[in-house]
């Protein structure tokens, strides 16, 4: 019945907390976050890199967590959707999604929030076209995309000029 499973050790930091776990080599980062760390905010739509629902930020870069093995992420620093809000206080991107009705069922939303966060971390004043291109790897089956684009542009504005209304 096959060789004994190879178990590997993974140390990484998620949303500022250090975690250390033993995993099978085939464990994806997405499953690691959801099943080993109980961080189920990261969603899995397709599990093969087609939908963007599982997008997280690894060492400052957006990554599809279903296309990364947990062992490949050993030593990395990861941000997931759970890290955005401070307690009950939504961050500006989440706030803008709420205000602009940029979600319905919410299944795709963690991926969009993390992709948008990655964009705004490198480009604080994106054009509408830049937002569209950046989010083109994320699929939403509910809202259509216009409200999502509106939300990201409005969050960018808010983050550049806190205190203004949009």
């Amino acid at each position: 019945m096959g060789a004994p499973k190879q178990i590997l050790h993974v140390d990484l930091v998620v949303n500022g907390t250090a975690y250390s776990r033993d995993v099978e080599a085939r464990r994806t980062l997405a499953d690691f976050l959801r099943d080993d760390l109980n961080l189920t905010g990261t969603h899995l739509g397709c599990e093969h890199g087609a939908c963007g629902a599982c997008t997280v930020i690894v060492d400052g870069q957006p990554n599809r967590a279903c296309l990364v093995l947990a062992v490949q992420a050993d030593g990395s620093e990861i941000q997931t959707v759970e890290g955005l809000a401070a307690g009950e206080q939504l961050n500006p991107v989440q706030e803008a999604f709420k205000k602009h009705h940029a979600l319905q069922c919410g299944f795709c939303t963690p991926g969009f929030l993390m992709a948008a966060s990655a964009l705004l971390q490198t480009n604080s004043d994106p054009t509408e076209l830049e937002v569209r291109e950046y989010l083109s790897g994320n699929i939403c089956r509910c809202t259509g995309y216009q409200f999502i684009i509106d939300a990201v542009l409005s969050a960018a504005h808010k983050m550049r000029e806190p205190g203004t209304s949009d």
Partner: protein
Amino acid sequence: MKPPPFEYAAPETIEEISALLAEYGDEARIIAGGQSLMPLLALRVVRPTVLIDIGRVSALDGWRQENGILRVGANLRQQDLLEDEDLKSALPLCAEAAPQIGHPATRSRGTIIGSICHADPAAELPVCALALGALMTVRSADGERQIAAADFFDGALSTAVSDEEFVPEVHIPLPDVLTGFAFCELSRRHGDFALVGVGCSASLDTDKRIVTARVGIGGVDDTPLCFDLDSAAKEQISDGQSVGDVAESIASQLDPGTDLHATSDYRRAMAALLIDRALQTAVSRASEG
């Protein structure tokens, strides 16, 4: 789905990679960024016994210029084509194609060499490798050989690299001053594989006449294709005649397939248009120096 079980090896040197490949052969798969392989694992199209993660082999990081050759390491990411200013100016064709390769979340891990070795017939970087006359360095425990991009692609998702070999590096000849490049593609949505993708390079002499011009085309066959312009075509364009005729005559040699996204005729018509556009742009960029 979840990937099937496999053993995982994380070598730290090129020699260790070769030794693992010598031992496991076709039961091993190389993973670098994993953006092509992970979907194949998830769909269980491939079931390796051993996955060899080359991501921690620092000798495969980065790129350098040496004796007129740009040497790209197997771990250089696609995103670097958009962020590294020196690389962008050394590889303008790849830099122009880069925004159309997947998405930010895949370019951040996906490697240049990984995409070439995956050999998707509609992918951008294999087309660039052809248009640039790249040489793929291929290595096994027995030594190293080089394969010209024009001989590298065997069929859809298939290359001349054997089971005991891997590609540590690609060598790209650095262009002369009077060389221009252009990449044009048509795809259904931003980030999709191309329906047709065209990369061109053109070099001029000091009288601004074309010395060499090469056209790489993706999405129209089982492999990306490459055409070197013959002297008649070069004369014709140098004399200021329409590039369109040359583009038409290349397109007429294509026999693209029909699928859900485009018919064969449509692909051929779009190929003619994109070759025309890319060739004109490459030539005019070359003459601007």
